[in-house]
């Protein structure tokens, strides 16, 4: 009598080991013929069956939300805290590097544009393209004007 040990790969190939399933009874396709569950059947079967179910699905609680909090990063509360009021001494401008100067100038220009936009001139979208030198001169003019110089 021939004794065989049935490997998993031999299951389909007629191994007679009693524990191996008889595959002829199962919906196993031929190679190349395997297909997933049909989409139409899915749409029909998976749709809510009653109006109540549909309403329940719409009014369901919002899903869980997980958040990743970096181990050493400051928490969101800390980052969103409004800056503390600065004293008069702190408001004195520090000597700025060229990068800071450009950033400050752009900010000044933005403020000026917003003021003009609020006053109705020019309308939104009419911000004039100017050079940094022009913006610096305007900002200095405004600064001198404010101090009555």
């Amino acid at each position, binding site marked *: 009598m021939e004794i065989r040990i049935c490997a998993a790969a031999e299951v389909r190939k007629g191994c007679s080991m009693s524990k191996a399933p008889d595959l002829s009874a199962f919906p196993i396709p031929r190679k190349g013929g395997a297909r*997933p569950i049909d989409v139409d059947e899915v749409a029909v079967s998976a749709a809510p069956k009653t109006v109540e179910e549909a309403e329940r699905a719409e009014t369901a609680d919002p899903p869980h939300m997980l958040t990743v909090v970096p181990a050493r990063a400051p928490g969101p509360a800390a980052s969103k805290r409004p800056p503390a009021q600065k004293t008069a001494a702190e408001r004195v401008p520090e000597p700025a590097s060229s990068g800071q100067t450009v950033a400050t100038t752009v900010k000044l220009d933005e403020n000026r544009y917003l003021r003009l936009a609020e006053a109705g001139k020019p309308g939104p979208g009419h911000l004039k393209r100017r050079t940094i030198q022009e913006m610096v001169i305007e900002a200095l003019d405004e600064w001198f004007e404010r101090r009555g110089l």
Partner: protein
Amino acid sequence: MHVLVLASQKGGAGKTTLSRHIAVEAERAGEGPVVLIDADPQGGLASWWNRRQAETPVFFASRLEDLPKHIEQARAGGFNLVIIDTPPQATNLISAVVSLADLVLIPTRPSPDDLDAVGRTIDIVESANKPMIFVINGATKNARITSQAAIALSQSGTVAKATLHHSVSFPTSGIDGRTVGELDPTSNSAKEVADLWKYVSARLRKSAKVAA
């Protein structure tokens, strides 16, 4: 027999890749025979099986309404594990398949987008009252966000000890219907898959004991 469902509402989390790798690894570990069922209309698992030379794990061409019947057939026919891959997005379909599961495996990439999306999957599994495990997939070695993702996920459930790291061998092995273990049994990815199966296998046995 156990029914393992891989679910995640987020596309690209690794459901199909994990389905086929776990199936092949279970058989390699002597815990087969395994049945694969592709409930994802995109058909990634079916295509992989069509490209595969080996006949096992076997593939069932099932329909949603026949799923419970086919699972019972598999149980009666001597199969040890049924693995069902599910689609992203389709909440109702995922719910229907999850209701048949003994254990739900939720692959999640360690990214804020995946963590944001995983909440919906958790809701589906919890409403079906099924046990679930998160698996971190596609992780980058020594990246802090991997441990952060594990911490975030552990607030909602069990996270598998085994993490699958990103490796080009996962897609490469799929070209001709194989797995990373079949491509190179000594690779890190093959070891990670083996570790994952050990963990999932233990959890399946545990959930079967609880159910009994």
